């Protein structure tokens, strides 16, 4: 058996350019599969880790569903109001319901303008609950207290001049100019590895509403259930309450009540869908690669008829010839797979690096040995299977005719 591999690898090496071109077909496909699955897994791990920062007893309520354009809850025709929040808080299993707003503001600093996403913090003792459930702590300066005005706290990524758009680091004590008003950076939040918190600006609720002339309406109502066990029932209670208040039937809700678990599940479902789609596309490229191998091997059999005849004359049995070509095709697939896996992992590293740079997190590439070994074994198999018909053709050659070439 070893001899087949030695002979096959010599043959492939001698056919340098053609082997390389044939490999191209396979390794593009394998590289696509490996990099996309690997990146997908990394993305999934990243997103899942974002949810670790949210405690499981939190329910968030938005109008219009999560697929709306813009920041959560914004730009919907029938927004939630502060009185919705008060009504939800009266539900027995609810510990608190805090209305929150998310606005994009234009801020000036260092003679530069940047658009920042601002979240509101309640002007009541609930502010500490919000800090606690999002594990927000001050890295420098201090956090905001209820009813403060003219002050903001910022996420860790925004402190850096590279990310905040001002081309200058923000420190505690710096002042941003928003709509002619000065805002004092009161604290910088400890880096959390959460995309949302690390890139956010926080301001007191009333201050934000006054600044943007917002009325009763709110973007998100953050609800805490009295215990994790009560989350599901609370979610149903809120849905029932809001259906009544907004006068909609079951199945026609113009609002969304989501728990961190349900968001996670739907995100994972979307990711899975994307991965399956990508794998289907990449598989097509592998099929094309397999056809390439079959094509190369068929041509090779035709070109090497004389060689096949000679081998038979010096004692090669039909199965010897078959295995020779079979192994050669398999090796083509395997080498293609090997390059594909290396390339795919490389792309996946690069992708993770770009992802980390873009949204300011630090995830690691997810290396799956099952994926790598599976790809290698799979590509040998694909090659070998593509080689079966040409190899059978070679094995069946009549030695007398074959020897004439």
């Amino acid at each position, binding site marked *: 058996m070893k001899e087949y591999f030695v002979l096959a690898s010599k043959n492939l090496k001698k056919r340098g350019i053609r082997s390389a071109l044939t490999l191209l077909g396979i390794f593009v496909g394998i590289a696509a599969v490996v990099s996309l699955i690997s990146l997908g897994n990394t993305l999934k791990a990243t997103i899942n880790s974002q949810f670790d920062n949210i405690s499981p007893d939190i329910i968030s309520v938005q109008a219009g569903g999560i697929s709306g354009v813009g920041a959560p809850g914004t730009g919907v025709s029938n927004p939630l109001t502060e009185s919705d929040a008060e009504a939800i808080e009266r539900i027995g299993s609810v510990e608190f319901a805090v209305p929150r707003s998310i606005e994009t503001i234009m801020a000036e600093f260092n003679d530069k303008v940047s658009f920042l996403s601002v979240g509101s913090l309640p002007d009541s003792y609930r502010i500490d609950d919000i800090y606690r459930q999002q594990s927000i702590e001050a890295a420098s300066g201090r956090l905001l207290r209820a009813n403060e005005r003219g002050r903001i706290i910022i996420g860790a990524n925004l402190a850096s001049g590279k990310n905040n758009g001002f081309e200058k680091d923000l420190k505690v004590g710096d002042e941003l100019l928003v709509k002619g008003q000065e805002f004092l950076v009161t604290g910088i939040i400890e880096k959390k590895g959460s995309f949302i918190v690390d890139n956010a600006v926080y301001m007191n609720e009333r201050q934000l509403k006054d600044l943007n002339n917002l009325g009763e309406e709110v973007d998100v109502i953050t609800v805490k259930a009295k215990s994790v066990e009560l989350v599901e029932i609370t979610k149903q209670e809120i849905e029932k309450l809001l259906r009544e208040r907004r006068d909609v039937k079951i199945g026609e809700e113009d609002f969304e009540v989501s728990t961190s678990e349900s968001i996670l599940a739907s995100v994972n479902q979307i990711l899975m869908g994307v991965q399956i789609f990508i794998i289907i596309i990449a598989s097509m490229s592998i099929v094309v690669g397999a056809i390439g191998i079959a094509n190369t091997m068929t041509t090779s059999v035709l070109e090497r008829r004389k060689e096949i005849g000679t081998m038979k004359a010096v*004692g090669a049995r039909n199965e010897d010839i078959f295995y020779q070509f079979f192994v050669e095709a398999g090796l083509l697939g395997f080498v293609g797979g090997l390059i594909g896996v290396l390339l795919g992992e490389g792309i996946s590293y690069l992708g993770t690096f770009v992802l980390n740079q873009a949204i300011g997190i630090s995830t690691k590439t997810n290396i799956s040995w099952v994926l790598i070994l599976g790809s290698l074994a799979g590509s040998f198999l694909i090659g070998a299977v593509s080689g079966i018909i040409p190899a059978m053709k070679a094995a069946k050659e009549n030695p007398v005719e074959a020897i004439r070439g």
Partner: protein
Amino acid sequence: MEEKKGIIVLKDVKKYYLLGLTEVKAVDGISLTIRQGDFVAIMGPSGSGKSTAINLVGSLDVPTKGEIYLDGHNISHLSESDLAQIRGRKIGFIFQQFNLIRNLTAKENVMLPMIFQGTDELERQQKAEELLKIVELGHRMNHYPSELSGGEQQRVAIARALANDPEVILADEPTGNLDTKTGEKVMEFLNKFNNEGKTIVMVTHAPDLALKYADKIYWLKDGKIDKVTKKTNNQWKEVKE
């Protein structure tokens, strides 16, 4: 003189081909016995069936009718793989166009027939080196066929034909692609191996080579044996097969 053992025996062997709708009688009833140590030449004009005859003798081809015995065994009805196995062990081939595997070095080409007989690697190496030294190519062992001259390639082919220590060497126009001088050298090697006991069967166009080296000539015509001549005491006489 003691009658030597018949290594290859053909009994009324016929080989017919269908060429389109016409039946071509390439070999039409040949009976012959090749004995151990013979140096036999097969001669005849183009289309006389020489090549088909040597293919049948070498068990590369199976007869349409008739029986072929190799070393006492009837091989007329063996499967292709069994035939290959026996052929690899008992017969060494030399072709007009050398037929070396171009992706393999001289040494690897010589090792090839031994692979199919399951010889272990170390023995293959030693045997190949030994044979290449005999054909005076010890210094060219790791060269590829494209780096060798025609004469050198044919000598590699001779070494390859001897790899499994076969009883018979079949040479189909072994000097057909060589100039006279290199051709002579190839013939000298064949002669040497014949003197050492190998049976040689050679198809050739060149009567001078046949007359010089062979000790028996089958003259073919239209797929049949036209006459058989034999050399005794440097005199050629027509004999009955």
